[in-house]
């Protein structure tokens, strides 16, 4: 909203020395967010953030803002001149009003005025409108718009001659299929979501939003029916959304205006017509409708105020703040008992004592409150493995394993899903960010593969990881009374490099993760059933009998589309919750005492028959050895001329004695014998 300082100055004398910049700061600190101030030669214009006005219908006008500034600067708010009293017009003119929509239109005031000459408005009025961001049109339309920005009441003027005689106004729900062409020239199809102002036959305006083109004021208009009405906020909002049409009028009505404002708006408009349109005659005014005009009184006491704000504010100060804003305060010397809300704040803005706390605190100045430490209760600490471990996991991956953490969007790209064969997804958005991002991800793979493609131009080898939720068919239990989709947290990683060593690198990282999480009974089983992974390189990972994820090398075809045709890419994805495996505490890794006696190292090399894998050899060796074999690790595995050669470091050690060569020879003999029996050739 644009706010003109010249218009505001009509109602308050801004104290000397206060600059437009000061006003911007004062309003921002105590009332609403002022985005900027434009200081011109003849006026200064403030740009107010509309979102910060959502709950303040009274501030959608210059007079409302002037009232706020008067309270802030402690100066007087001047009244503006109003024409007559609505009740004075005993002759109703040539107009009938029928309200057929009950609560949706609590009040409708219509005035019939003739003797109108449509002309250009005076300069001050045109300039005021331009400052407020509204284009001047002609004196009648300009007056309705000026009242809108001045007091906040939307008005509309119909050409009385185009309504038929006698003029009849009906406020009703639109019938399905009815059409009205609004002032912006758009023909709009209506249904019962929309409230209309109609004549005997057809809609002539969309109530509270925009008038009709056919019955609007034109150059030759000499009599008008002026409307100043009140329409229900939810109704105007519903219709505005239905028609996809927001106007200066609708944004005010949807904040909930008071029916009294309709009367003020009408009398102010009549005054301006009286002053600015010579020859105009008010023939009659009709005021129809029902609304309950009950004062809102809120019980509140000083103790409550102090408790909520956290520091004592003098009672006199509180009363002066509230009265400055138009509230009436009932109090005696000792305490405050209740506060009466002014009508312009009573349509929903101020309803509970907490709302008054805001009024007091903001006018006192949030910045004037001193930070106060609170007395606190010592409670038992809650060990949160999920968060502790997530932090640890990320640190191990990033700072220990040399991976870089990425954060991706929760939706995945349809094209990438197609390349990977990962399927569209299980949950779609009604209003997706883009057509290709219609579905939420079921796996972290597609977005990470995109990261690979984007980075491979700049980096030869690298590794990335992400820890995030995916969204899948099924139900997951969370705190709350709603039934929500399965949305497990996953951790995925990718390593890109020149050769297949990336597989070993990434598998090593998985081993590190599993050891950080103290996983036991780990199995690597063939075939992860992922079409984007190269067959025979892919595997499922099981911990204590349950599958927690998979890894493998990315298939050549997929690598081609990732611009990685001459590189190797390894990928893993693990279920984060399965990694924790229902534990509530993570057992510490027990310390092993440092051995007293020296280890003895022996190496053996052997050819193994086809189809024998490292895991089975390891099991054979461990099975054949006694407890003196403390460690076994492979150090040289290669295939030459179709023969697979393996070499093992064997580390022997005893807690009781220094082992002799003879003892070790026996141990090694046992092991080689077992291997030979299985058909291995010892080299």
């Amino acid at each position, binding site marked *: 909203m644009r706010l003109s300082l010249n218009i505001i100055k009509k109602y308050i004398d801004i104290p000397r020395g206060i600059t437009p910049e000061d006003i911007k700061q004062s309003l921002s600190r105590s009332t609403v967010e002022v985005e900027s101030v434009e200081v011109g030669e003849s006026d200064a214009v403030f740009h107010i953030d509309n979102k910060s006005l959502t709950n303040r219908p009274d501030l959608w006008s210059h007079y409302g803002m002037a009232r706020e500034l008067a309270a802030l600067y402690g100066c007087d708010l001047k009244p503006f001149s109003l024409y007559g009293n609505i009740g004075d017009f005993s002759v109703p003119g040539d107009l009938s009003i029928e309200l057929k929509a009950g609560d949706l239109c609590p009040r409708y005031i219509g005035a019939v005025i003739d003797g109108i000459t449509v002309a250009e408005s005076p300069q001050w009025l045109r300039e005021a409108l331009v400052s407020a961001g509204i284009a001047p049109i002609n004196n009648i339309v300009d007056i309705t718009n000026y009242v809108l920005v001045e007091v906040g009441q939307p008005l509309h003027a119909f050409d009385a001659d185009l309504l038929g005689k006698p003029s009849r106004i009906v406020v009703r729900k639109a019938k399905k299929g009815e059409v009205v062409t609004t002032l912006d020239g758009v023909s709009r199809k209506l249904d019962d979501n929309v409230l209309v102002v109609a004549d005997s036959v057809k809609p002539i305006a969309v109530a509270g939003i925009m008038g009709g083109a056919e019955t609007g004021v034109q150059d030759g208009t000499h009599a008008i029916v002026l409307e100043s009405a009140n329409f229900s906020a939810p109704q105007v909002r519903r219709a505005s959304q239905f028609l996809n049409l927001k106007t200066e009028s609708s944004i005010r009505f949807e904040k909930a205006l008071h029916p009294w404002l309709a009367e003020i708006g009408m009398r102010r408009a009549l005054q301006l017509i009286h002053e600015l349109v010579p020859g105009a005659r008010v023939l009659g005014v009709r005021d129809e409708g029902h609304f309950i005009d009950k004062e809102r009184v809120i019980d509140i006491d000083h103790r409550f105020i102090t408790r909520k704000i956290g520091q004592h504010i003098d009672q006199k100060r509180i009363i002066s703040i509230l009265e400055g804003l138009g509230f009436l305060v009932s109090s005696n010397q000792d305490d405050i008992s209740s506060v009466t809300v002014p009508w312009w704040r009573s349509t929903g803005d101020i309803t509970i004592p907490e709302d008054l706390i805001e009024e007091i605190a903001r006018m006192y100045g949030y910045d004037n409150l001193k930070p106060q430490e*609170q007395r606190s209760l010592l409670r038992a600490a809650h060990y949160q493995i999920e968060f502790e471990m997530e932090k640890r996991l990320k640190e191990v991956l*990033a700072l220990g394993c040399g991976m870089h953490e990425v*954060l991706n969007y929760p939706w995945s790209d349809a094209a990438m899903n197609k390349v990977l064969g990962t399927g569209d997804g299980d949950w779609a958005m009604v209003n997706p*960010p883009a057509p290709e991002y219609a579905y939420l991800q079921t796996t972290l793979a597609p977005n990470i593969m995109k990261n690979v493609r984007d980075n491979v131009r700049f980096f030869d080898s690298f590794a990335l990881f992400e820890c995030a939720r995916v*969204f899948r068919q099924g139900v997951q239990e969370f705190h709350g009374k709603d039934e929500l989709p399965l949305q497990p947290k996953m951790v995925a990683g990718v390593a890109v490099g020149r050769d297949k060593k990336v597989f070993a690198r990434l598998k090593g990282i998985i081993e590190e993760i599993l050891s950080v999480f103290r996983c036991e009974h780990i199995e690597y089983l063939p075939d992860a059933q992922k079409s984007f992974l190269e067959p025979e390189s892919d595997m499922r990972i099981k911990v204590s009998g349950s599958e927690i994820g998979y890894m493998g090398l990315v298939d050549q075809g997929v690598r081609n589309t990732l611009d990685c045709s001459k590189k190797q890419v390894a990928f893993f994805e693990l279920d984060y919750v399965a990694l924790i495996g229902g534990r509530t505490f993570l057992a510490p890794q027990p310390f092993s005492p440092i051995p007293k006696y020296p280890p003895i190292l022996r190496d053996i090399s052997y050819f193994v028959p086809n189809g024998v894998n490292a895991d089975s050899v390891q099991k054979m060796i461990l099975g054949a050895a006694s407890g003196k074999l403390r460690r076994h690790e492979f150090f040289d595995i290669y295939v030459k001329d179709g023969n697979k050669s393996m070499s093992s470091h064997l580390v022997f050690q005893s807690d009781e004695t220094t082992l002799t060569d003879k003892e070790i020879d026996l141990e090694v003999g046992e092991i080689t014998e077992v291997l030979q029996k299985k058909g291995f050739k010892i080299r």
Partner: protein
Amino acid sequence: MIDLGALQRAAQEELETVRTNEGLESWRIKHLGRSAALMLFLRELAGMPLEQRKEWGSKGNAVRKELQELCEQRVHEILVASTTQSIDITQPGMRPNIGSLHPITRVKNDLNDAFKLLGFEVYDGPEISSEGYDFDALNFPPDHPARESMDTYWIKTKNSQSQGAKKLDLRPHLTGLSVRYMQTHTPPFRFVYPGRAFRSESTDAGHEQTFYQYEALVVDEDISLSGGKVLVYTILERVFGKQVTIRMRPGFFPFVEPGFEIDMQCLQCGGEKCSVCGDGWVEMMPGGPPHPNVLRAGGIDPAKWQGFYINIGLDRLAMMKYGINDIRLMHSGDLRFLRQF
């Protein structure tokens, strides 16, 4: 027969060029290793007549011995060379290969540490949530314009007319999560709930469709506006590592009463106005006491308990902290960005 002389010359010439231990090891494998020509020759001798074995065996072994001695000599020379060679202290060292944590994770970790010192619990919940928690429970009146300000991504479900708990969304903020917590815990309590939220808006250097928030709620008998200010200072000073100047001003959010916005004096210009802040202040976080209706939705009696929320935009905080000029970098996955952290 083999030309032992030529073989020895070649090996010796090659040895002259060896300067490192690694080079020496390759030389040793090539000339004295299991598959070296000399060694293969000596092995083949085993199958030859005695005369030849004697003659060639002694010649061959002499070459082998000579080469072995030269090799050992070289080991010594390399050692001497390496100890007498001076170290160029200006030559770059070998940097370890260390990865990186996302700047948002770093800032989140900082905040978690700060809040844990204040005895806060960390809490987490669903990213697909419902209108029931994200709007209804948070005192958004039905058909209220404030619902629109959230620009929510709605999830397709079988029944498109569903409402409330059955109408699913990608959470547009974290606040709905606080109601899940309140419904299942007994006050007093204090907890934080970091996470990402989603809004359907167009992206630019300052706006994202997926962004990170860090929210905290304290519920106690008399946590006040002044008490909440302590939290605000704690957070900002922890993250920025120095004292900061803040201002609080009114802001409207249906779930808080009163609601306000907290601005921090710009750290780039110290409040002198610059391109980062515009007017010397940077909007950091909204906050305020939970509206009584929100406490009620959480099953908490507003007559007995009151509270204080604060909500920090982690993206913006990270941007301020590190001087990042475009929020879209956060989701770029670009290593040229990520590896700087």
